[in-house]
């Protein structure tokens, strides 16, 4: 009984170790989709709002679709951008929390 459980913990820890190794970068992509008049939605027609790529060293790239306003200036949709930035922050926070939880498994192995 104890040895099987120990094996499982060991294998979980090995998986976590792989995750930890694979955090070189993360990307957050926000899309939007139109709700039709009948309330139907086609997710395959979702359009990107923005994409942010964050590297381990802290550098990040952000791709933001812009549209040309009547005055000729390019502008982003403020509401969507706001949502996107919140998504990015949420993802950063979540990843930290999840990794911490996964590291608990490693800690349980005395690592």
């Amino acid at each position, binding site marked *: *009984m*104890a040895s*099987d*459980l*120990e*094996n*499982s*913990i060991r*294998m*979980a820890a090995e*998986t*976590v170790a792989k*995750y930890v190794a*694979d*955090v*070189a*970068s*993360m*990307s*957050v*992509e*926000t*899309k*939007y*989709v*139109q*709700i039709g008049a009948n*309330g*139907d*939605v086609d*997710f395959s027609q*979702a359009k990107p*709002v923005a994409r942010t790529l*964050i590297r381990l060293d802290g550098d990040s790239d952000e791709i933001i679709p812009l549209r040309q306003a009547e005055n000729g200036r390019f502008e982003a949709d403020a*509401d*969507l951008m706001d*949502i*996107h930035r*919140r*998504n990015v922050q*949420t*993802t*950063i*926070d*979540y*990843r930290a*929390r*999840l*990794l*911490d*939880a*996964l590291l*608990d*498994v490693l800690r*349980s192995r005395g690592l």
Partner: protein
Amino acid sequence: MTDEASLLKQTLTFNGINGATGGYLLDPLTPKEIAMIARGESFEKEHLRELRHRYLRAAQTHLGVKEGVDPKKIQETGWGVIFAFDDRERLPALKEALSELLNLRQEQAGDLYKEYIGVDAYRPEETKTAFLARHGMGPGPADPDKVPYYLMIVGDPETIPYRFQYQLDVQYAVGRIYFDSLEEYAQYARSVVEMERSQKRLPRQAVFFAVQNSDDPATQMSAKHLVQPLALEIAEDQKQNQWQVNSFLAEQATKATLGDLLGGEQTPALLFTASHGMGFPNGNELQLRHQGALLCQDWPGPVAWRQSISEDHYFSADDLSTDARLLGLIAFHFACYGAGTPRLDDFAHQAFREPVAIAPHAFIAPLTQKLLSHPKGGALAAIGHVERAWGYSFMWEKAGAQREVFRSSLKRLMEGHPVGSAVEYFNERYAELSTVLSSELEEIEFGKTPDELALAGMWTSNNDARSYVIVGDPAVRLPVSDEGHKNDGQQTDSAETERPTISTIVIHSEATVEAPLQPPPAQPDTSGEVISPAALDYGLTDSLRQARDRLTQSVSQFADKLGKTLEKAVDDAATLEVYTYVSDDMSQVSRDFASSAQLRAFTRIRVDGDTEVCIPERSREIDQQLWAIHLDMVQQAQTNRAEMIKAAASAATRLLEALKIV
């Protein structure tokens, strides 16, 4: 195996037979097991302090009462009667019924006579210390100027607990009476007064009655190691005082003989019996009538008799003849419950920290009660056990010391001491053993290797010494003819040829003693059926084993599932998905959300942080409300995922640690 090792493993059988099953009240235990229980022993601090003080004092002083007071002289020792505050309504009737005795004692004790009634009475749940403190007395030897040395408790052991009696008895000479009717109180009082005032004397006869049931180590032990040597020693010792000592042992110790000794032709002045005491399951219909009855030689023994005990085998209160001539008798019974039964089992409490009810309420042994209150004149006192008798104490290497206590007490009694003074040796022995035992246990706690044989002997002896009580007035003494014995200054030299009696008392009074304690509805007596000796061995060992097996299986399955869950949780931590749907009619939403509701937003997050979020837009406007809902769900899902992985990892780790200890 060494001698000691084999001794530790020998099985010891104890006093007490279960009348309903025919089996022992206490299954045989090895000294090793007794030592284990002994290590669970506890002492109330203050009581222990007093015991130790008494023990240390014993070398230099006489017993019980303070220096300079002669315990044979009531005018020096004082005499008091303790009533319960809760009995105040019937107090006048009780006092009236006991008036002859109270008047006698008042004459004898003079200013040192005290009645503890009204505000001075025993208060509910009062400790000995509190009681004495209220009356200006602290721990230490009795000071009759403050509290008389001889104290008679009048009350049932639920109202004035046995514990109070034991503890008070350490330094005082305490007895108790409790009867069901005023007539019985009056008859007892008349019996005592008759023998003291009338100067009637009984022949100097003492009888030792020792049962030795077949295949029964307990009675073999008490007969061989206690009664036989004791009878010889007493006979030798009291030859000079013209005591005639007879013994009825083994085949002679029948119920018929005992009947003869308890009210029949051969009733002596002093009777010492050693036998099993009868016990019955809590609430059994015979318990309140027959518990403490004396099992005689008529019982064929545990091998030949494997069913409930027949009443033909034991002598109970029901067997006392209406013509019994008991006046002046003092009886000493070595038997379980011979003097009474507490409500809770003291020894199980020590072992298991569990108060176990063994009776619907505490009570005095009915045989003893009837001996004292017989309408033709009752016994003056009976000494016996409340709770179990621990016969193993006589087999202990220091058995000589234990038997010496009996010898000394009987000697004192036979030489004219009041019974309360005579049994001070038991109190001293109790104090000694408690002190030694508590010290031994303390040393064991600090690392000493326990001597289990000695521990078992000490513990059983201590328990045995503790639980003797006097039923009756502790100031009574053997009313025997004695040329050298002075009875309050008077001398007589003739013994009655025929045992005196008293006339039956009828009380014409509106006040009545309350009906005897009504026990709660009896617990279903499930042990009345015949149980084979093999079945008697069935018990918690099997039950605990079953519990452990069940738990082991359950935990094993859990560990297996937990392990797999943790592995999968970590694998699946790769991706977290959150979907938000809406529906016009929630009642139509089935288990498959996708087919019964409309998807409006989703978020997919990978462990590496890669995230896709799809938000709904209605008429080129973000559906803020829906988005807010979805965001909320995403945050909760993230928190939940992290928490569950942490919790699962922690559960797995800690379970593993616990399992490794198993």
